[in-house]
C-alpha cells in the first residue's frame, strides 16, 4: 500500500558527519558489494571496462566547496543515499504498491516483484536517491541494509548497514532517531544535525552533521617576523640585495 503510515514505531536511519568524511568512497564500494548480492535484483554495471562505464549505485559521494565571504574555501565530502523520509513523496506516487514505508522501523523499500519501472518515484524524490536499474528494469534504492540489521546469521558487530560498518573515518552512524537517548539522537543534538532541502517538506530521517568551521589565520600571523636583522643576517641581506 503506497499510503504512508501515520507514524512508525522506530525511525531507523543514518547520521552522516560532514566534518570527518574524507571522501574515500569506501562506503560506496561496500554498499555496492553487499547490495548487488543480497536484497532484490543485482546492481548492474554497463560497459564496466569500456570507455563509458555506468551503473546503479545506492550511495554516492559528492564533493563540494563552500566559499565564505572572505578567507579560504572549505572542501566538504558529501555521501548521499536515501534519507528514509517520514513524508516520503516517492511512496505516495507509486501506482503499483511496490514502494512502501515500513510501520515497524520507518525503512522505505521497493518490492521489486510489484515494480513496473515507471520511474515516477525517482522523479518525486528531491535527493536523487533512487535509480532505475538499466538491465533489470526495477527501481533500486538504499534498504538501510534491512537484510543485515536483523540478520542473526552474521556476527553482532556486523548487524549495521554495510556503509557504517566500513567507514574508516567513523563518519557514518546508524540508530533509532525516534529515541532521544540513542547514540544518533545525541549526536544530532550535540552537533546541530540538519535536514537536506527542508523546504520540500519531506522530513528526512537521516541527518547530516555540519562541518566545523575552519580556523581563520590571523593577520598577525602573516606579518613578516624579522624586519630588523642583525649581525651575519644583516650582512647577508645587504650582500644579496647588492648582487
Amino acid at each position, binding site marked *: 500500500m503506497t499510503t504512508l503510515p501515520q507514524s512508525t514505531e522506530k525511525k531507523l536511519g543514518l547520521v552522516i558527519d560532514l566534518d570527518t568524511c574524507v571522501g574515500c568512497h569506501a562506503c560506496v564500494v561496500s554498499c555496492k558489494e553487499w547490495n548487488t548480492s543480497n536484497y532484490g535484483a543485482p546492481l548492474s554495471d554497463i560497459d564496466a571496462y569500456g570507455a563509458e562505464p555506468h551503473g546503479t*549505485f545506492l550511495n554516492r559521494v559528492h564533493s563540494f566547496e563552500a*566559499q565564505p565571504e572572505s578567507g579560504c574555501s572549505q572542501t566538504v565530502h558529501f555521501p548521499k543515499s536515501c534519507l528514509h523520509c517520514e513524508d516520503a513523496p516517492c511512496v505516495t506516487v507509486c501506482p503499483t504498491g511496490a514502494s512502501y514505508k515500513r510501520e515497524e522501523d520507518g525503512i522505505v523499500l521497493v518490492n521489486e516483484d510489484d515494480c*513496473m519501472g515507471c520511474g515516477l518515484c525517482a522523479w518525486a524524490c528531491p535527493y536523487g536517491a533512487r535509480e532505475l536499474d538499466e538491465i533489470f528494469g526495477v527501481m533500486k534504492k538504499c534498504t538501510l541494509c534491512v537484510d543485515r540489521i536483523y540478520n542473526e546469521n552474521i556476527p553482532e558487530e556486523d548487524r549495521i548497514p554495510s556503509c557504517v560498518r566500513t567507514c574508516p573515518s567513523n563518519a557514518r552512524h546508524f540508530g533509532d532517531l525516534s529515541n532521544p537517548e540513542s547514540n544518533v539522537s545525541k549526536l544530532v543534538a550535540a552537533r546541530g544535525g540538519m535536514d537536506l532541502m527542508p523546504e520540500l517538506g519531506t522530513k528526512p530521517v537521516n541527518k547530516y552533521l555540519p562541518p566545523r568551521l575552519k580556523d581563520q589565520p590571523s593577520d598577525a600571523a602573516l606579518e613578516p617576523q624579522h624586519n630588523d636583522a642583525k649581525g651575519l643576517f644583516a650582512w647577508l641581506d645587504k650582500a644579496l640585495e647588492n648582487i
Partner: protein
Amino acid sequence: MHPAPSVIAFTTLSGLGFGLLAFLGIGLPPVTGWVAFVFFFLGYALAVGGLLASVAHLANPKNAIKAFSQWRSSWLSREGIVAVFALLVMTVFAIALIFFGVRLRLVGLIGALLCLGTVFTTSMIYTQLKTVPRWNMWTTPPVFILHALGGGALLAGQPRLAAVLLASLGALMVWAWIVGDEKGRAGSTMETATGLGHIGKVRLLEPPHSGENYLLKEMAYQVGRKHAFKLRLIAFGLGIVLPVLLMLLLPVTHTTALVAILAHLVGIFAGRWLFFAEAEHVQALYYGR
C-alpha cells in the same frame, strides 16, 4: 527532465483523442452511422495509441496491470482507472450511436466527463511533483485540459469553439512560461541541498562519478534550454496562432481544417517537448546543474 518520445507522444496524442471523444460524447458534431464510426475510430486510435506509447515507457511492463491498485494515493494509478472507465463508457455510447442510431445522452455526458477526468489525472501526475517547480503550478491542469479541448474541437470540426479554446490555451501557456521562468527552482539552491549555506556559496568540486548515470540522463537534461525561445515561438505560432487564424478568417474546408490540425500537432509536439526539456529537477543541484 528528459523528453522521452514515448511520454511526449502519450500525453499529446491521448490528450487529443480524449478531447475528441469528449466532444463526441456531448453530440458535437451530431454524427451517426458510418460517419460517427470514423470519428470514434479516430478518437480511440489517438487515445489508445497514446496509452500504449506510455506502456512503452515502462522498464518492467509485465507489472503494468498492478498500476490499477493504488488509487488511494497515486495519481498515476487514478489515471489508469479513469482512462479505462472513460473508454468503456464511450464504447457503450458509440455502439448505440453507430449501430442502433440511438443517442444515449446521459451516457455520453458521463463519458465526456470521464475523458476530461483522464486528462486531468494525467496532468496531476506532473502537477503533484514539488521536485519540478515548473510543473508544480496551478496552470498545469488547465493547460493540459485546454490542450485536449482545443485540439479535440479542431478534430470535431468546431471552428469557433476551437479558436476560443486555443486562444485561451495560448494565453495560459505564455503565462505559465513567464511564471515558470521566474519560479526557477522555487527557492531550492545548492546551499539548501547541501546544508552548507552557513559557510558560504557552494559549488561542486568533484561529481561522485565520472560518467553518466540514470539520474543525470533522466533529471538533468540540458539540451532543450538553449533553444527554449525558438521552440516557444514554434509552439505558439503553429500550435495556436495559425490554427486560430485559419479557423476564424478562412471558410472552413477540409483543406483548411487539415492544415490547421497538422500545424497544431507540430506546435503541441514542440510545446510538450519543451514542457519536459525545460523543466528543472531539484536533484540536479547535487550535480551543480
